[in-house]
Structures are given as structure tokens and as C-alpha cells.
């Protein structure tokens, strides 16, 4: 996983609440058995008008946002399905960071598994950034170590993040590798638990 330290990038606005993962990437793109190449599915239905032509009003169709790496959006982003294809598609499009007042839990977790930083800012701070982004070429600097978002005019907003998640993302650690370091603790748990609750350990292959 790519580490996330400090990132300065162009911001793209998606001014909608409750954006669900069905919108981020519709079902027809979930038939893949790969993690890559999903950008063509990103916001697929919203990119098009009813007649199938590209909707010039949708941000991803506008030249000024083509190289955006920070997605600015509203409350409850990523609700609905657990599909990790949503952060995969965002990453494939080039997004390394999302900024919103709140996220759905599973999407929030999934971002950390893919080197994407989901920043939570207060509603009025997000509103201020939406105001800023109306200016073409608007960039933000996101510093994970300092837990700050800094605007071009120097305003700085602080965000919270769990220390453990922060450390893993900052160093780009392999979460499975980390857990496997505790193999003996897992084995000890299994030994104790299987004597307390043996019905939980009658595995299917043993039938």
C-alpha cells in the first residue's frame, strides 16, 4: 500500500449528501476479478445524460477537474454496499484523499486499506472549502502527520484520526502482515476459546 504523508492536490467538488457506493461505482463494474481499471465505472450513471451523451455539468467531465486528487463532498459519503470497488475506482481515477463532514463506516474503513485518506472536517469548514473550490485551480495541502488541511490562503483546519490507523497509513503498512505478527496471540486465543466454547470450532472440513 502506498504511504500517505503530505499531499498537495487539485480539489474536485461533489456537492451532494448521502452519495452511495452504487453511485460511486454501479453494479455492472463489480463483475471484474481485478482491483485495477475501475476508473471507467466511477460515477458512471452521473457522468451521462439521459440520451447517453456525457453530461458537461458533471465535475468529472470538466477539463478543470481532470487532474484532481482530492474529492470534496458532503455528509454520509460512501453509504450502502460494502463494495471496495468504490475506493478502488476513486484511486484509479487519481484520488488520494476525500474530505467530508461524515462517512459511512464500511467505506471509511475501506479507504484506509487502499492508501486513501478520508478526512473528516466540520460542516462549516467543508462549506468554506466548497466556497474556495469555485475558483479554478483550487488546491489543498493535507498533512497526515500534523492532521491538518491547509488552504491556498493559509487557513488551516485540524482533523481527528485514530492513532493506529494513522500510523498504518503513514507508513503504508500491510495490515495482514501486522496481524500475522501476533500469530502466537491468535493461537493462544483459539486454544483457550475452543475449550470454553468448543461448538465454535467444529469446522466444516472436519464434517
Amino acid at each position: 500500500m502506498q504511504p500517505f504523508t503530505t499531499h498537495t492536490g487539485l480539489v474536485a467538488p461533489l456537492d451532494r449528501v448521502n452519495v452511495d457506493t452504487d453511485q460511486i461505482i454501479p453494479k455492472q463494474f463489480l463483475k471484474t476479478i481485478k482491483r485495477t481499471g475501475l476508473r471507467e465505472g466511477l460515477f458512471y450513471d452521473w457522468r451521462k445524460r439521459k440520451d447517453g451523451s456525457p453530461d458537461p455539468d458533471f465535475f468529472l467531465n470538466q477539463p478543470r477537474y481532470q487532474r484532481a486528487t482530492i474529492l470534496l463532498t458532503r455528509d454520509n459519503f460512501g453509504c450502502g454496499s460494502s463494495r471496495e470497488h468504490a475506493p478502488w475506482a476513486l484511486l484509479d481515477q487519481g484520488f488520494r484523499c476525500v474530505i467530508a463532514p461524515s462517512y459511512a463506516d464500511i467505506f471509511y474503513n475501506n479507504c484506509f486499506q487502499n492508501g486513501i485518506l478520508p478526512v473528516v472536517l466540520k460542516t462549516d469548514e467543508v462549506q468554506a472549502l466548497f466556497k474556495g473550490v469555485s475558483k479554478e485551480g483550487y488546491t489543498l495541502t493535507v498533512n497526515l502527520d500534523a492532521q491538518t488541511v491547509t488552504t491556498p490562503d493559509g487557513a488551516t483546519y485540524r482533523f481527528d484520526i485514530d492513532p493506529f490507523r494513522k500510523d498504518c497509513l503513514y507508513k503504508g503498512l500491510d495490515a495482514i502482515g501486522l496481524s500475522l505478527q501476533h500469530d502466537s496471540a491468535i493461537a493462544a486465543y483459539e486454544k483457550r476459546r475452543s475449550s470454553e466454547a468448543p461448538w465454535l470450532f467444529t469446522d466444516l472440513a472436519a464434517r
Partner: protein
Amino acid sequence: MAAKTLFEKIWDAHVVRTEPDGTTLLYVDRQLVHEVTSPQAFEGLKLAGRKPRRPGATLAVPDHNVPTTDRKLGIADPVSAKQIRTLEENCRDCGITVFGMNDVRQGIVHVIGPEQGFTLPGMTIVCGDSHTSTHGAFGALAFGIGTSEVEHVLATQCLLQTKPKTMEIRVDGTLSERCSAKDVILAIIGKIGTAGGTGYVIEYTGSVIHALTMEGRMTLCNMSIEAGARAGMVAPDDKTASYIKGRPMAPTGDLWEQAVKAWRALPTDSGATYDKTVELRAEQVAPQVTWGTSPGMVTGVDGMVPDPKAMPDDRARKATERALEYMGLAPNMPITQIAIDKVFIGSCTNSRIEDLRLAASFAKGRKVAKSVHAMVVPGSGLVKKQAEQEGLDKIFQAAGFEWREAGCSMCLAMNADVLQPGERCASTSNRNFEGRQGAGGRTHLVSPIMAVAAAVEGHFVDIRNWK
């Protein structure tokens, strides 16, 4: 010992170790796997040279892509076929039990877990699917995860988790006749909103919840995720144990006795506290119908489509305007005047035998309106078989419903069962997002008997006083 909630008891029993900031390595008792969210997890394992730690703690089934028409013809879409083949190959390579497409035990992953006795009280259960919350009906801690976490559980049988907060949702009183668990959960989502449960695990309590059957509790817990909560649970009781007893993967003999004894200690202790409590009176729950593009956009069937102009909050007004435009609905239109084109009875929310029995009892002797196309998709091959033994298939077919093979089907339209742009569907599923049942399709979420009545009349009707 301090009084604990059901959730806290299960959480505490599964902690392997805790990081200084509280991040917990949590042991996972069972994992369910389907074809859509697993291929990249198996690929990741292979690339890293890792093997599943406990292949026997995992059960796999293809459900999202499977056709609901004659399976002997195979799968027309080669990409869907490849995804299902990949699941079967991965499971074979890893020694994981998989119910193939032509196995009578195949079905929707959240139907077959409980049906097989794979789902038990007190367990931690995960699946790369947000509706894993369904299994909480048994007093298990069950939640959906992403594909990277599927791989994590395969490799370690554990997950790194932050401890969620607890929310009690208490429903007391008496439900009106013909109102069901589906109406209760939709009313709850309408009350607390689609992010109301974010960061929480919900425990449903109160007389109405205790009175629900196990299948009703599954419907309830299933849609916890639509309220933003990753997991919903109901304390196990005698009903829970009777439901499980004798199922193929359930414990037997001494193990059964030990398990039942342990399950009796699971319910929340008196004196235990929740971080938040929400109360709902059952008398306030009318049969529910969603009118918008989010499950929280819901009202009673005796209500009206809301008027965005009456909304003081700017963002709520904009979201409502957008939803009404997508749904093709006018403000202040009575719900009962909404005419429908399709009816879908199925999904992990409402496709179990009790749902089908009840739906059939209302379809019996009636006819689907000429303007409506209606289909029934059982939750599993075994549900289908049971329904056929009881003659339910004949009742549905005589009324003009199509009777299909088991799978996720039109809940998310990954197979051939898709709404056409502009088509309006009364659906017993769980999500009414834009395009969920097909690009441009319009979904109204309802209970199974509300769906039957809508199929017969061609528009929504108040089931409480239907004929």
C-alpha cells in the same frame, strides 16, 4: 462483575489483543463468502503466498450473478460466469465449502447461513457484504467488510476493529394487523435517518421485537445498515434455539447442550447501559412505502409525497427535489395513487419461507394487474423446495407471478433481472438508490404483502383495509 450489553459480551469474548489507542484484534468465528467481493481477496492471498488459517470456518456461495431462470442453460453473460467459476476454483484450492449454482442448498448468502445452522448466537460473523447485519437476528455480532478485510480474515481469522458505540432501539406496543418487521425497520430508518446509526451497533429491544419470529428479526436486522449501523442484533431466546436446533451445521449432542447454556447468558444484563436509546411506539407504524432514492425517504402508505417547498433546510430541499425528479413524482401526491410497472418479491430482506407463505396467502385467488409484471425469487433452493411442497408456487403462478430460481436477482440487478429506464417497481428489497435495480429504474421499498397488493391493484394500497 459490571453489567454488560449483549454486544459487549460478544465483543469482550472475541478480543485477541488491543493496541494502546483501543484498536482491537478481534477474532472472527465465521466468514461467509460470495463471488463478487472475494476474487481480489483470494488473489491477494496467493500473491503474498498465504493460506487461509481456518478454511472450515468459511462457507461460500454464488448469489449475486446467478440467473433465476433455467440453470441448465448456464449463464449467458461470460463475465458473470467467469466470476462464479473463479469463486468455485478459489474455494476448491483453499479447501473451503462452496454450494455451487446447481446445489439445492445454494441461495442468498444471508439466507443460507441461518438456514444451515452456520449462524449461531454469540458468534462474530463477517462477509464482504453490507447485509451481513442480518445474522444479528440470532444474537451474533455480524457485519459487512470490504474485500481487503475478507483477505485479512482468510489469512488471520481476525480483524482490526475500533469498538463501536451501542444504541438501543426499543419498540413497544402493538403492531397493527398486517404490519410487519419490514414496516418497523423502514419506520426506524425514517425516524433516525440513513446515518443515524453510523458508528453504532444497534440492539433492538421491546415487546414488539420479542414477539417477532426469527425470520422477522432477520428482516429487521438486515436493514440496520440502511440506518448506517454496521450491525444490528436481537438477544437470543428460546425461539432462537428452536429455530437452530437440528439444522445441518448446528451443534449436536453435548455440544448443543453446552451451546444453549452459553446462549442463555448472552442477553443484556439489567443495569447495563447503551450510549444512546431510541424509542418507537408500534401503534405509530403504518405500512411503509419509500418515495425517494434513499431508504430514509419513506412514509406511511396513508401519507403523501413530501413537498420540497415546505422544507426549511436547504440541503434537504435540494436532495428531495432531486429525488422527486429521478422518481418522476409530484409533491403532495397521495402514495396510493402511485402506479407501478413491476413487482419484485425477494432479496436477503424478504425471501424466506414465512415471507412467501404470507405473500401467497394474499395472492391466492387474485390476479396480477394487466399493466404489471411480477416475480417471486425465493431466497434459497431449499426455500423454493419447501414453498413448492406447500403449493405456494402454484398459487403465485395462478395469480400471474413468475416463480424463479434462488438468488439476489433484481435487488441489485447484477444478473439478467433488471428494470428498464423509467420503470417503477414495488420491491421487497432493501435499497432504493438511483439505478439500484437498473439504470433509470424507480424503486419503492415495501413489505411482501404490500407488494402483492400493489401487483394486484396496479398501484399502492393500504394493506390494512384491503378487501
